[in-house]
């Protein structure tokens, strides 16, 4: 449980967003458990549940790596512990 993080990607839709993000995750040995993707109010919105159990970086390093990647392709990528969402939405 402790190793699960949620990656959200929001930005203007264009070719290659998923490819870029999943490549970055693969390079960090982060396993993607589930993906949901939609266009909301014209914005590309993707949410992923990932498992960091086998990751070769820690959360802070993954965040900064995805920040850079997000900047390069022009989207906002955030990474948060799954616990935040569990805590807020589940009793």
């Amino acid at each position, binding site marked *: 449980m402790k190793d699960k993080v*949620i990656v*959200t990607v*929001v930005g203007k839709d264009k070719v290659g967003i998923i490819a870029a993000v999943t490549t970055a995750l693969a390079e960090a040995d982060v396993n993607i*458990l*589930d993906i*949901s993707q*939609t266009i*909301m109010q014209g914005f590309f*919105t993707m*949410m992923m*549940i990932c498992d960091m159990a086998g990751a070769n970086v820690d*959360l*802070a390093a993954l*965040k900064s790596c995805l920040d850079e990647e997000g900047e390069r392709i022009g989207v906002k990528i*955030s*990474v*948060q*512990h*799954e*616990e*935040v*969402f*569990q*805590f*807020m*939405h*589940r009793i």
Partner: protein
Amino acid sequence: MPLTIHPNEILETIHMLEMENLDVRTITMGINLRDCAGPDAVKACKKIYDKIYRMAENLVKVGTSIESDYGIPIVNKRISVTPIALVAESADTDDYQAYAEVLDRVAQDVGVNFIGGFSALVHKGATKGDLNLIKAIPQALATTERVCSSVNIGTTKAGINMDAVLEMGYVIKKTAELTGDRGGLGCAKLVVFCNVPEDNPFMAGAFHGIGEPEAVINVGVSGPGVVLHAVKKYPDADLGTLAEVIKKTAFKVTRMGELVGREASRRLQVPFGIVDLSLAPTPAIGDSVADILEAMGLEKCGTHGTTAALAMLNDAVKKGGSMASSYVGGLSGAFIPVSEDAGMIRAVEAKALSIEKLEAMTCVCSVGLDMITVPGDTSAETIAAIIADEAAIGMINNKTTAVRIIPAPGKKEGDYVEFGGLLGKGPVMSVNPYNSSIFVKRGGRIPAPINALRN
């Protein structure tokens, strides 16, 4: 592996954090300093420095790492300590300035922006140490940057110590004078309380109460922007339905505080105290309590109906929040600080909101007349009378009330005072021109009310 969280729920959380200013307002570490007392003030101050430094060394680092892991901004990391009057009393000196200076220095060295506890509890009477502390407040607040001070002058159980009320009128005037070059900023770090809570994480009134453990982590949540957004989504709902919406929102906001508090407690190995369920506004656009009241259907905050709207809002926040946290405490109620809330400032400018209306509003919410700027020529006696009124509301209604008032030197009604940062910009408000000095100078103690006799 199925998605255990619905994408809409993820988006809701992200939206709250990114668009609606959701944050945890403060993690405050309470630290007991009773074991630092001693006859030699220099030695006592060294002990104070060493103990605070040892306990809080990692506070900011841990706070920042929680922010990063969870993606929740934690705006302030702060420290509260045992009321210094209790710690300094056994020293062979009547000058407590050195204690304020050591608090300021250690706060700076561990990286917190405020340290609370330059405080005295004098609701029934003052000891030698209490009097020394009160005497030291103006100079302490003028010469330090991070030290916050509070004095409790009344409780429901003890009544109101009117000698202390009058003294605080003079102390506030003196503090404003000594910080006149900064608009009277010292007064923004000084709170006069009735029924002060011992576990409040919010400044400037935080201190580490005498019934508290060695150290404790208290968390203050915020989230006016999130509640505002939720209220705006239901422009036609009746008030029962709206209360339900606010409750659900408050639940979610408070869960963030609970999570952060538990995690901070675990990482710092300090027991978790309480979550303070307060709607704490900031000067940021969209982070205003006044805006929520206006979204409920009032043309301007302060008009007729404001007290009712605020009562409903405050109660719904508490109901939702209390479900979300295992331990609730502190002030727990909507704050209505004028200078820190853009909507309140607008309401004052439009002449919709007066001190009298704010006083009425404090009957149904936390905490009191907060960050009120008044003309520089307001007398100490008038300020004492304002404190007495507010304390009476607290005493009779069994609730916390407080006064944080700034008689800004050289300023008159209609002027502004810029305090900067979270303290915001205060519009100078008019006070009643008639004299209360004979009343407040009678002194003595207003007896505890009949509703204090509950045994």
